[in-house]
């Protein structure tokens, strides 16, 4: 694995748990974790983790549509009403036979460090965070992305940056699942 990420793996009799974080933690705004209940040898597990990080496969159109709709609404709510925070989570069934689902949560919020926005202090920042998961009968994978996307005082987020956060999280999680389910 390239130097930017560290993966932790824990095996027990019933499950294999993995966790991937940027080095130092959250430096990249990306982390992922998951578990599989079926036996997975070292090579397969490594392949899975690499897929989650690199995310080579594109999710199907209806999942992208879900992400785009959530992002568009979040941006609209911030611009029209100047909210303090907004979040939306959607879950869709992707495979009835294996009972597999994908979910995506998109949040946009003002990050208040306690001082920001005060006289002489820097303005509060707008942060976008997305968490996507893919889960089936015997496995679950989650991927998180987060990025600073604007200045809260202006109340305007960088649309491309918010969209990137949501679609990237979706793609990481989707790549943990195929080709087993989709």
């Amino acid at each position, binding site marked *: 694995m390239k130097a930017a990420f560290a993966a932790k793996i824990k095996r027990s009799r019933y499950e294999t748990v993995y966790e991937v974080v940027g080095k130092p933690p959250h430096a990249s705004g990306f982390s992922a974790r998951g578990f599989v209940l079926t036996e997975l040898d070292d090579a397969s597990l490594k392949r899975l983790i690499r897929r989650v990080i690199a995310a080579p496969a594109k999710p199907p159109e209806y999942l992208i549509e879900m992400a785009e709709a959530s992002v568009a609404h979040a941006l609209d709510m911030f611009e029209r*009403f100047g909210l*303090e925070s907004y979040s939306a989570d959607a879950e869709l069934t992707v495979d009835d036979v294996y009972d597999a689902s994908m979910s995506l949560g998109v949040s946009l919020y003002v990050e208040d460090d306690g001082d920001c926005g005060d006289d002489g202090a820097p303005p509060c920042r707008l942060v976008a965070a997305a968490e996507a998961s893919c889960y089936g009968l015997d496995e679950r994978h989650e991927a998180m992305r987060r990025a600073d996307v604007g200045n809260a005082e202006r109340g305007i987020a960088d649309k491309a940056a918010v969209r990137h956060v949501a679609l990237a999280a979706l793609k990481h999680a989707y790549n943990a699942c195929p080709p087993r389910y989709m």
Partner: protein
Amino acid sequence: MNWHIMKARFVMRFERDAGYINYEAVGRDLPLPYIGFSVEGWAPCPISLMKKQIKSIISAPVKLPRRVRDVVKSLYGHLIGMHRELRSTSYSIGALLELDDESDLMFRITLTLDDVCNDDECQPLRWIARIEGVYRGYMEYHRLKKYVEVGNGYSGEPAEVKAELLRRMMLGSAKQIYNAYAHRCDGK
């Protein structure tokens, strides 16, 4: 600590805690749409004032300000759109807005397909809306929770969300939690 039975088929209880009153009011044996309604919170007020405030939350007498109403309507529009266009099995949406320098209002709704069982002998599929509204002020906190069936289907038939019922529940709940602010006991 005693439960006080109110007229509107709600029971309330109060507890004193270091200058604050903690309270909880729960709907009992109520028909739809009040099934699963409760409100809880705390504030540094006398019990008599607190009772008035709780009654105002339950009966929701004031109008919602335009901004709050528009936020809730936009949440509803997006929620029903996602449900109809994407056929999501679960959707949750929430927003936090500032009412003034010391007060926030949080509103969240989760729409879930209750699919525990859909066989012939079991209950039909149901769409359940869980609504949560929180008013957080400088020295007080109120949380409303509502659990409502907003659509059902019979075995073999898809359950449909009753959009108008959902819209009314969302606006009604927003009005109820806004009343915690409009009738806040510090009187500001």
